[in-house]
């Protein structure tokens, strides 16, 4: 189960934070800070997994953004690496060559996309096309 997903830039600013477990605000800030410290120091040649408290964080860097997913110890790391990549592809398709600014100014849309992709800490849909179609249907209703 996914415990939280974080998108942070290199300076540590959080661009997206979605928690699937309840945490106090102060705890959330602490978590974001710690995770940022862990991922920003990771070299490209090293593994994409770090142990974080009693869980593990799987992260990948795309341009200036770090996508971090915290999962239970027993989860399949390689699978979550794939899911991070799928999410990035979806964002890329939705925003047409996404950049960090897109994510900042349209953060609410990013959350909505995330909610179509992952629910209750588990993958909801694995087809990029299906998610994009659903988003366009929902946009039409706005």
């Amino acid at each position, binding site marked *: 189960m996914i415990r939280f997903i974080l998108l942070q830039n290199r300076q540590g600013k959080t661009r997206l934070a979605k*928690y699937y477990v309840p945490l106090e605000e102060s705890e959330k800030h602490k978590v974001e800070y710690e995770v940022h410290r862990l991922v920003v120091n990771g070299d490209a040649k090293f*593994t994409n997994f770090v142990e974080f408290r009693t869980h593990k964080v799987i992260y990948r860097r795309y341009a200036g953004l770090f996508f971090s997913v915290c999962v239970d110890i027993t989860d399949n790391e390689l*699978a979550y*690496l*794939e899911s991070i990549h799928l999410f990035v592809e979806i964002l890329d398709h939705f925003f047409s060559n996404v950049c960090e600014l897109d994510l900042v100014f349209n953060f*609410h849309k990013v959350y909505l996309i995330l909610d179509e992709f992952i629910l209750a*800490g*588990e993958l909801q*849909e694995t087809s990029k096309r299906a998610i994009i179609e659903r988003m366009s249907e929902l946009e039409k209703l706005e």
Partner: protein
Amino acid sequence: MNPFSSGTRLRDMIRAIRACKTAAEERAVVRKECADIRALINEDDPHDRHRNLAKLMFIHMLGYPTHFGQMECLKLIASPGFPEKRIGYLGLMLLLDERQEVLMLVTNSLKQDLNHSNQYVVGLALCALGNICSAEMARDLAPEVERLIQFRDPNIRKKAALCSTRIVRKVPDLAENFVNAAASLLKEKHHGVLITGVQLCYELCLINDEALEYFRKKCTEGVIKTLRDITNSAYQPEYDVAGITDPFLHIRLLRLLRVIGQGDADASDLMTDILAQVATKTESNKNAGNAVLYECVETIMAIEDTSSLRVLAINILGRFLSNRDNNIRYVALNMLMKAITFDDQAVQRHRVTVLECVKDPDASIRKRALELVTLLVNENNVTQLTKELIDYLEISDEDFKEDLSAKICFIVEKFSPEKLWYIDQMLKVLCEAGKFVKDDVWHALIVVISNASELHGYTVRALYRAVLTYSEQETLVRVAVWCIGEYGDLLVNNVGMIGSEDPITVTESDAVDVIEDAITRHNSDSTTKAMALVALLKLSSRFPSISERIKDIIVKQKGSLLLEMQQRAIEYNSIVDRHKNIRSSLVERMPVLDEATFNVRRAGSFPASASTVAKPSVSLPNGFEKPAVAPLLDLLDLDSDDILAAPSSSGADYLQDLLGVDLGSSSSQFGATQAPKAGTDLLLDILSIGTPSPAQNSISSIDLLSTADVNSNPSNALDTLSSPVPPHTATTASTGMFDLLDGLSPSPSKEATNGPAYPSIVAYESSSLKIEFTFSKPPGNPQTTNVQATFINLSPNTFTDFIFQAAVPKFLQLHLDPASSNTLPVSGNGAITQNLSVTNSQHGKKSLVMRMRIGYKLNGKDVLEEGQVSNFPCGL
């Protein structure tokens, strides 16, 4: 347009915030915006609510408090329009979580929305529910969600399935309601619904045994068929990732098969074909393929034994190990640790590769590889492996040296074939990484040295040579100083040379030089100096010719600023001066410490080499999970690289601690002149030593294997420790047990003496919890005792999720019944009772003893208490 409207659109606000150059500017902008928003909230204007909430969410993401916006979310959710609802739910998920009471207010809106005619609205409600619902909401809305699993639109079905996942996680009792619906989802064709359906089934199997049985009987073949279809399916561009159709679905299906097959031989048989197919035909040049293979290997290792499959799995892992991608190697190392438990041979074949990984530049790989190597060590390869590891120790990084040296010491202690080799290796480690070596390790070294009487001469000479070169390694200096003190005469007279040694001339003066250096060096700490002073005293007796010089050194220390040194100097000086007649008998050779006794007394070890349970770690409340070598499951978050106290060849057992805290060795039996060592031990004891109860003759070893499960789930197999724990009878009266909490009931003395009615005891008492045991014996079976445990909450708050676990030594068998409840109301308002029955195979010879661990939630925080019950009435 409202004249008081803030006027700024969302984009403008974001732009303004980004344009701020300093934090103070940003705060000012945010404050202004918040003020505007608050004003608008007060006006209760529906037009801009939408935009205001979006702004609030952005401000929240920046880290500012936004509690005033919570009611806005509720109002938006209650509005009829879809866009408002959408942003309302989004705000709800962002600004609130399940622990806030405000969430309850949403329940009604959620209920209405779940029944809405517009399926998009239903989707919104399911999404919100699935992400943040609390247990009460889950209970209220479960029937709605259940109904929606069968909805006509697949989008709703999949959301309902995942929402149900959360519901059963929060309220496991509701699991039965969802079983049928979940089973029907397994027949879906739509991938999204299928994957969520599989996930739901997986959760249900984990939580509820009957569900597991149901799925096992009815759905195994269906799942296998689905997996087969998906593996063999033609190219589907929509789901294809790197040549594999929907790897996520593969992985989910494999997981479900894993939990179905675990513990059940028939189900496992059915799956072997498909698992073999997946394992052999999946391409592994891309990450997606490797992810599937990894999951497949995990499944193969978890289900019941089919050795050919297992060989296949280990071969795949071997291939992973030589993959250039670090992620793959990391994952392979992890899995190999689990594989060792059932096929040591196969893993041994990869030993060389693993050793290479120890030297890898990546820290996480090094760590994993080191742990794996520790598991791989056996009598045959220990010399080879140790040599490689010590060679690497010389060139490794500082931060890794600690882990590495700890593991080397552990290996050496455990597997050393002969004393000479042991001493040599330890010497090398001390030279390279002395400051990382823990105290009980070098204490053990000294014990071994003192026992190896034929090697005394060799040892002291080797130490002398070493300390000349490596004098900055504190531990080395200490060991050397002690040995030179003890065996100085052997050093000087070249006694006991063994074949491989070069002769070395050491005069008495040289030996004293070394010790003087240890005292006067500025970075020696007080322990070393104190030890050196004792050594000098010994030498003054053994080397009468330079007694004067030694006396001078001692006299100089009389003015030392350290009280300990001053005191010793004065005392030793008076011995040297006026009590020459007793001096020699005072500093006679130390009596050799019996290794067996020493190892028994060496508390605070833990199973560093325990096998991990391959089953995914669901927090089944009363299942006890072995802390794996990976420090991940260690509740106290301690570094797993502490030293394991090795059982010596005399078969002595050692105390194993439930939590794996290194409590340091109790040295109450070390000789009087070994004052320095006793001093350091007591100083280093993190926790106060409980009074060892001399009246008890109970065993000082507690075996983790006897931990009882309340849900004696057959698939939760208690694996044996891979290091053999030989049965042993400790004849020592002093048990050296440690009370982890000072609040433990202080009197180890038993209550009334043996009477047929056994008095009840207070098993444990702390400031917040009291546990009482009352005893009864079933008729006709004197070895068994029924204990009723009563838990009383002494704090002013209620405990929830109350769990009691117990562990007993090997000669006892423990069975725990389920507790009467797991919520413990405040003192006086009720208590929890739990029955246990203990069977004592050494009835009459040994009394009962038990270690307990109690976990509960207090004000939302998890609390853990441990204690030991040693005051059982005798005769039980």
